[in-house]
């Protein structure tokens, strides 16, 4: 026992030979000489066999935990690299682009239209006065997208996901990215909305929201930024 304690000294945080041998035996990396040394120590302290069994069980458990933690990550494959001018996977990409940047683009169009009085349509045959177009600060697509994320019904966006890499003729690589926004629409309990078997909405969310939500006058809450 005295010899074991001498080789198991932890007082100053130094690694003991017992620790080293336990680790080597646990990992199956011990040499014959290491095994003999351990058996010598264990001959004077049978408790070391229990410590070895515990160490092996702990290592096996940690392996299981790490496996569980990384299960999804181990399915990650290399991204698909599209051939030059190959037909892209529109069926996958299209709807998500509408769901992601599509709303931003719609918002941009709306902002530009409302900010251009010179382009306003005539009312009752009266032509609008030709006034100089004011210098309106332009909003970029990305700014519009970020603006949309601030809408009161938007909860947030998920991590952008790469769907495809496409080499371009000019030596650049085009990264196709899918953005996903989570938002809500309040629907009366007695109404349903149309979805398919994969829970894809069969209606335009913006149109649905407009149909469901009361006008700005009733809510007192502006829906324009």
């Amino acid at each position, binding site marked *: 026992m005295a010899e074991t304690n001498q080789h198991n000294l*932890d007082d100053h945080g130094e690694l003991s030979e017992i620790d080293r041998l336990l680790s080597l035996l*646990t990992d199956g990396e011990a040499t014959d000489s290491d095994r003999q040394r351990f058996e010598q120590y264990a001959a004077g302290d049978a408790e070391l066999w229990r410590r070895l069994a515990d160490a092996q*069980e702990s290592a096996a458990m940690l392996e299981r935990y790490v496996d569980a*933690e990384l299960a999804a990550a181990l*399915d990650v494959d290399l991204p698909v690299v599209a051939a030059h001018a190959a037909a892209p996977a529109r069926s996958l990409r299209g709807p998500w682009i509408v769901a992601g940047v599509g709303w931003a683009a719609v918002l941009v169009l709306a902002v530009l239209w409302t900010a251009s009085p010179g382009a306003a349509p005539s009312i009752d045959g009266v032509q609008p006065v030709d006034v100089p177009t004011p210098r309106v600060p332009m909003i970029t697509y990305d700014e519009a997208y970020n603006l949309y994320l601030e809408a009161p019904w938007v909860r947030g966006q998920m991590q952008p996901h790469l769907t495809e890499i496409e080499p371009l003729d000019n030596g650049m690589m085009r990264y196709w990215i899918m953005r996903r926004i989570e938002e809500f629409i309040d629907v009366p309990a007695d109404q349903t909305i149309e979805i398919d078997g994969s829970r894809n909405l069969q209606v335009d969310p913006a149109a649905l929201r407009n149909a469901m939500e009361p006008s700005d006058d009733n809510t007192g809450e502006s829906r324009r930024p």
Partner: protein
Amino acid sequence: MSGHQKIREQEGRRDAEHELIRQGQAGDRDALQSLWQTNRRWVAAIVLAHRPRTIDVEDLMQDVAIKFITKVDTLRDVEAFRPWLRRIVINVCRGAARSHKHTLHLSTGPASSDDDDQRGSVNVPAADGQSADEQVALSDSARRVLHQVMSLPAEYREPLLLRSMRGMSYQQIGEVLELPVTTIETRLARARRMLREEIGEEVWSEGT
């Protein structure tokens, strides 16, 4: 298997990997795919060791996969493939730590004030396609153990996680980390002792 057989087998695997790297650099996509599949287990362990706490390992793995496929032709010394890939992983994790504050993660809520902590606690990633049951697959004791592993200094955390991805020998861990086998031995033994001191016996026995 004898020591000589083991060494020959390791050398054979290494030669085959070097050949795949050369083929991949020449544009062979299948070779790259094979390389990735052979190495992604330990790559995931390195990601886990270095990721910021609010970013899923899966997302970072995707970033690493992109870097790997777009940068592999810059690798000059095929012998240094694994350290090169590890550096890519670490750079991806650092880059993510710098930029992720602006992204809201639905699975984890708003970024916390200690996001700069490279180490990070364990939160089961809410990966796409996972059911709620899968997301909470880890027990409390597993979370506690993994949390303690993540709290170890990187020099101990990394070899321990690599070792916990089954099948990596000390020699292979040493190749990835560019350290002698004796150093790997010492770090693993020390990491285990630190864990035992921090966690104690009861947590391990809870999981049995």
